[in-house]
């Protein structure tokens, strides 16, 4: 009698099997998954959900699993913003939502800082950058408001078990090169839909060596690769973060199972982190990526360090390392919108905010700001280099602006020279 072979499972399969109450699942199966956490913000959440829930006469399935973050229309700049944020605040009180974070930072950064995202969870967010949660070994992705309404009523969501595409980064990054460069490189290679709504998993020594916030940058921009999720197997770096975020249970958490089995079926692409150069994505697509050298004569009018994918503490640290004691070039406007108050406070205490201000930075509120084009906007016709996630035409509020995407190191170096520049030349 032949021995029964249990096929190996990918991390994605294991996470989905758990949320569907199964021992294992096959690629292509459509599952009904139980939602462990649902996040939405002032734009995608209450203003859309409240009227629909009221019309249905339905109630939220489990308020303890809901997190509301006000980050898109804060600080309120006009009557429409005030109305939208007011709806969110009133509804939070009326519903007695236990987890509400108002104007303290961007949802994708605030959630992990408050310890909401933990390995093994199945989570949804009312925002396309919700795959950020994958950095913690949670199956998390973005959904629209109507689908979120379905989750609010039922606590469940359908998922087709995806194939897994493993992005294996060997060796470690050189100084002046960051997770953003890895991600822009991968998006450039595979395109904005290269992920085909499957599960991307980042692995290898180059990924293991990254801090949690750098890992979050990878998972976050899985969205720009068209993946459903961007997973990273949790490890001791993850545990350390969770403990700091107040998740006491993390001390005893068994993380060993949350990984892709060697025998699991997956496509693997191998990269060398050590030889990766800083990357820049030209207008108007994150996939329009080349090494920084290709852009060395491009003038910079505005340098924008902001967004969930570009203004976390580690991003601010990277920028400050380049700016240290230097000033931006004449005519360059440098804007810094830290991703969360916690990150900004820590950056203040490390002297990083002082370095940035002395370099000429205008410090903006800890919110989505100009990245989404909702709050503030960049000047028409400007050449912008930004640490944000998307440079679609008009995305940042101006149809005529030319937006280049790069790491915090590269944005800082470019601000210093007034031309797109390789940060390694300054750090050397």
């Amino acid at each position, binding site marked *: 009698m032949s021995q029964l072979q249990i096929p190996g499972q990918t991390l994605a399969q294991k996470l989905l099997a758990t949320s569907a109450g199964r021992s294992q699942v096959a690629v292509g199966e459509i599952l009904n998954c139980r939602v462990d956490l649902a996040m939405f913000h002032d734009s995608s959440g209450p203003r859309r959900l409240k009227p629909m829930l009221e019309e249905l006469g339905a109630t939220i399935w489990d308020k303890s699993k809901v997190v509301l973050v006000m980050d898109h229309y804060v600080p309120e700049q006009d009557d429409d913003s005030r109305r939208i944020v007011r709806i969110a605040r009133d509804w939070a009180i009326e519903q007695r939502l236990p987890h509400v974070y108002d104007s303290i930072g961007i949802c994708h950064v605030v959630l992990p800082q408050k310890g909401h995202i933990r390995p093994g969870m199945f989570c949804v967010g009312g925002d396309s950058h919700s795959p950020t949660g994958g950095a913690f070994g949670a199956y998390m992705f973005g959904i629209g408001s*109507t*689908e979120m309404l*379905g989750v609010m*009523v039922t606590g469940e969501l359908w998922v087709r078990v995806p194939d897994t595409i493993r992005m294996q980064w060997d060796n470690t990054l050189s100084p002046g090169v960051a997770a953003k460069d890895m991600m822009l490189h991968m998006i450039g290679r595979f395109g904005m839909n290269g992920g085909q*709504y499957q599960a991307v998993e980042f692995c290898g020594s180059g990924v293991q060596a990254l801090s949690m916030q750098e890992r979050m940058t990878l998972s976050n921009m899985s969205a720009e690769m068209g993946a459903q999720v961007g997973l990273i197997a949790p490890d001791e770096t993850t545990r350390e973060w969770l403990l700091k975020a107040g998740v006491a249970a993390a001390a005893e958490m068994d993380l060993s199972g949350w990984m892709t089995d060697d025998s699991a079926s997956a496509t693997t692409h191998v990269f060398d982190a050590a030889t990766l150069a800083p990357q820049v994505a030209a207008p108007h697509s994150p996939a329009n990526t080349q090494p920084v050298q290709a852009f060395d004569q491009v003038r910079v009018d505005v340098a924008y360090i902001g967004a969930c994918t570009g203004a976390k503490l580690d991003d601010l640290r990277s920028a400050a390392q380049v700016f240290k004691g230097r000033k931006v070039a004449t005519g360059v406007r440098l804007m810094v919108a830290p991703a969360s108050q916690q990150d900004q406070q820590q950056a203040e205490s490390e002297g990083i905010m002082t370095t940035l201000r002395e370099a000429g930075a205008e410090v903006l509120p800890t919110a989505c700001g100009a990245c989404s084009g909702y709050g503030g906007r960049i000047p028409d016709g400007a050449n912008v280099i930004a640490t944000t996630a998307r440079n*679609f*035409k008009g995305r940042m*509020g101006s149809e005529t602006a030319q937006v280049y995407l790069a790491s915090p190191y590269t944005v800082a170096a470019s601000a210093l020279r007034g031309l797109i520049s390789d940060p390694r030349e300054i750090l050397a």
Partner: protein
Amino acid sequence: MSTHRVWTFGADIDTDAMAPGAYMKLGIEGIAPHCLESVRPEFAASVQPGAVIAAGPNFGIGSSREQAAAALVQLGVKAVIAPSFSGLFFRNAFNLGLLLLTTPDAEQLEEGEQVELDLQTLRLTRPSGEHFQCEPIPEFLLAMVAAGGLMNQLRQRQGRGV
């Protein structure tokens, strides 16, 4: 079987083009007039109910904002035909009752032509008689479109009728 006028678009049409950030503060009736204006300025004002969009690969990439799909529904667009869609847009479209048809032949469709759509077989027929077979769609998603979207299904579930 029903007949639909084709509007053609290129590859990588993103959500921010369908629901521009600057108008996201408004309701869908305020967003829809600006739908796709950065790509085809005349589209929103000229498109008639029942039209279909034929586009290149990666239709709907970008944001989770379902107003991108909702704006098309608001303008009366019946279906979008493309070689591939953003996964997130795919979910949103069906949730809002917008049919998405996947076929590698989408870009062969021509501006202004009238195509017949058979919802049973998911087959498109051109005036010349040429057929394009679209990829199968799970039954529960077709049912969602037939119901006019997830909200209508939830209404039924809550026992309030449609």
